[in-house]
């Protein structure tokens, strides 16, 4: 059609970043509000809901009032530790999904890759005896290798046989969970019965394999948290500053054009999926080496599936992923404290799920925001839809094979 050639005037990068993150921020806000009302309705009182939220914040950010009265540092550091350990795991699974997404692959399989990584870390941690420091690093690297290897499978199935990665990673999740939790953990790797206390899960890892704690004994804040921040930063550098990252993103947004430009797309896909698997694997190792100190009977919280929410709420931008992981790490650490008011500790997961649902309706936000922008005076209003969208995977067609 007769298109006007002038596009909007260039605006500052900062304004653009704010504008782009708006749908996510609003989604999280709306989700918090909806969930608040939900507690209010089920408990029959808005003030209970309010105090439940307050408890959640105390549990995640620290109980500042009690600290003011008692002056005991653990009142702050313990919640921080809980929030940070959860945020670290969420960062890794979120990055796993985000990196694959940028390469045009929807990695539903972070859960499976994480399970494989966790069992690798648990086995290496319990079976090897290495000096302090080296042991922990070997376990983390072993988990990354295991997760990465598991990530190769969907990549190869897609490249060689045209199997859509959404289908294959769903299948591989259950394969990993079944084999690890219902075979390895109850069979070959079951904890040796010590005395009469029957432990479920694998043997406890050696003290040398545990991730070093960063604060005093009251807090579980461990080296995994700075590692996660580092990983988010490194992923950002890789995706947006290096040639390889550029090639990967180009492939993710238009595989055909990337191939025509001579980008070895098969190799880039494989690299991205190995990286995604490795990141999820490290998430598993953090859970084992930082929190559980063994592979428990079941992994419990579905951090791998949460990674999808974290990645998309963070708009698949590594720094956005870090921010959303931190936020939900805090909320989830606080979830335990909500039980004081008889709200289930998994409540923050509901907030997270709803936020993802609202993020999924991105076009609704864009429509609503541009309508507001239009009504506002033209000069000050934000410009038309800037498509602050994360790239859609090249084809979101989870057909088993086919095109």
């Amino acid at each position, binding site marked *: 059609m007769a298109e006007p050639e002038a596009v909007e005037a260039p605006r500052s990068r900062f304004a653009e970043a704010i504008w782009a993150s708006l749908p996510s921020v609003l989604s999280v806000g709306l989700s918090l509000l909806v969930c608040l009302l939900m507690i209010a309705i089920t408990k029959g009182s808005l003030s209970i809901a309010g105090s439940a939220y307050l408890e959640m914040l105390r549990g995640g950010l620290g109980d500042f009032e009690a600290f003011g009265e008692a002056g005991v540092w653990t009142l702050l550091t313990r919640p921080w530790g809980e929030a940070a350990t959860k945020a670290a795991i969420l960062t890794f699974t979120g990055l796993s999904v985000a990196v694959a997404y940028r390469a045009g692959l929807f990695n539903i399989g972070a859960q499976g890759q994480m399970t494989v990584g966790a069992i690798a870390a648990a086995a290496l941690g319990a079976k090897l005896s290495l000096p302090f420091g080296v042991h922990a690093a070997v376990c983390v690297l072993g988990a990354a290798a295991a997760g990465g290897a598991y990530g190769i499978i969907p990549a190869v199935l897609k490249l060689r046989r045209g199997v859509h990665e959404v289908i294959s990673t769903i299948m591989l999740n259950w394969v990993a969970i079944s084999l690890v939790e219902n075979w390895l953990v109850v069979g070959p790797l079951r904890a040796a019965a010590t005395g009469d206390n029957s432990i479920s899960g694998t043997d406890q890892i050696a003290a040398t394999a545990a991730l070093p704690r960063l604060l005093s004994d009251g807090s579980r804040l461990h080296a995994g948290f700075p590692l996660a921040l580092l990983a988010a930063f490194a992923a950002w550098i890789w995706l947006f500053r290096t040639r390889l990252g550029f090639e990967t993103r180009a492939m993710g947004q238009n595989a055909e054009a990337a191939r025509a430009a001579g*980008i070895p797309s098969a190799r880039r896909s494989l690299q991205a999926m190995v990286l995604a698997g490795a990141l999820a694997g490290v998430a598993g190792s953090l859970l084992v080496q930082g929190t559980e100190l063994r592979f428990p009977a079941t992994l419990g919280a579905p951090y791998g599936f949460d990674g999808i929410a974290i990645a998309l709420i963070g708009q698949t931008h590594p720094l956005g992923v870090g921010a959303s992981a931190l936020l939900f790490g805090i909320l989830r650490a606080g979830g335990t404290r909500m039980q004081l008011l008889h709200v289930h500790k998994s409540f923050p997961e509901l907030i997270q799920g709803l936020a993802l649902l609202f993020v999924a309706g991105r076009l609704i936000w864009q429509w609503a925001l541009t309508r507001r922008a239009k009504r506002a005076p033209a000069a000050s209003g934000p410009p038309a839809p800037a498509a602050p969208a994360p790239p859609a995977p090249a084809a979101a067609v989870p057909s088993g094979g086919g095109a």
Partner: protein
Amino acid sequence: MAEIELKSARLIQLSHISKAFGKVLALDDVSLELRPGEMLALVGENGAGKSSLMNVLYGLYHPDQGELRIKGERVRLRGPKDAIARGIGMVHQHFMLVPTLTVAENVVLGREPTRRGLLDLKRAQQEVEATCKRFGFQLDPTARISGLTVGSQQKVEIVKALHRGAQVLILDEPTAVLTPQEADELFRVARGLSAEGHTVVLISHKLKEVLAFAQRICVMRRGKMVASVAASQTDTRRLANLMITGEEESAAAPSLHVTAEGSAAATTASAGEPLLKLDGVCAGPKLTGATLEVRAGEIVGIAGVDGNGQRELAEVVTGLRPVDRGEVRLCGATGSLDPHEARHRGVSHVPEDRLLHAIVGPMRVDENVSLGRQEQPPFARGPWIDFTGRRERTQALAEAYDVRPRDPSIPCGRLSGGNQQKVVFARELDARPKLLVAVQPTRGLDIAAVAAVRRKLLEEKARGVGVLLVSLDLEEVLALSDRIYVMFEGKVAGERPRGADERELGALMLGGAAHG
């Protein structure tokens, strides 16, 4: 009695129709009348609003303003269903057929005969057979669409409209995918329908066929209706002026006819060393033995009906498609090709579908310019992206190729089609190729942009670049090429020099031996 009254009446009146898509005004106060039994052509450049206007008439688009009257009665079409019920049928440029279903199933879709709640396929086949017979189409109702030729699929589309009792038949760029012979056949059918009292509207930008076919020609430009003239009282030059400037006589119109003759300096005689030699190349099911040669400093055109292996040929040369058999000698080497290797040997590629194969829409213009050479200076420094070098080179190219707007940081997908094509040309020619493979390089561009692209191709030829031009537009191939290969069913069916006869090429395109 009533019928006679209708004949003289206006069958359809579109008055003061406006329609906007976001910020773009696709239709701006357009009015049009259709009379019974009339053969009308709607012409205009790409994006002039022809298809949008017809989509309004077909109920696919809801106009923002204006009214529609059918047989004098004011109507509001809520969707194609209403339009179909009022006797309007449309054959879309891209066929609207379900490939996995049969002809009969496709034709009856939406008004299926049923028996006791179940689909009555027998009756569907009989009904479709009856419609085919009545209008003289030869189609097997039980054949699957995916197995039909393009020409037959188009017939299914027409049968689909007639089966629903269409009085008005809209044909949107129907000849784009047909050979001249198939197009003749289509127009014969259309004339027959018109003689029976059907109104036929032809949307096209091919002025020759419009003049041969229509009684009345309406010209659109930038969303407005600029003229309605009798075919007998106009010619291609006047129509072209109307399309480009909105006036019949205008000095400002850019030259339409950029041809090889125009750049007299470069002729076949001056063609240099061979750059590309294919010998019995087979690749996939569609390319079954291509033998041809391209030399430095010549434009070699590839003509053929869509789907006869031209696309695959271009993919082989650019390394996108592996060769099954035969030899490819490219720039002096014969080793196997991939896109990276092809670029390395000096091949640049302007592919058929920009947004699919050349441009990453959501990425910035400078990122798109670096594609293909993203690992070389000035686009990279070691493993790192060279942001400054990339921006500077992009700005220089945007200046040289007049890309608007100049800003290298906006997403490429937001540029207009013509400007996207400029970005692609700038990028591909900046690589200083020896061989340029251009597939349908002017598709979807307006006339000024078409002329610019054609001029660019001739400039490259003059610089000694070999150009392999694949186009479904026979006129374009004839206008630019020094030599023409015609492809049929995956093989080169013949080679002709510049100035070959259009009919003769058409016969070759259909696999017939050249007669005369």
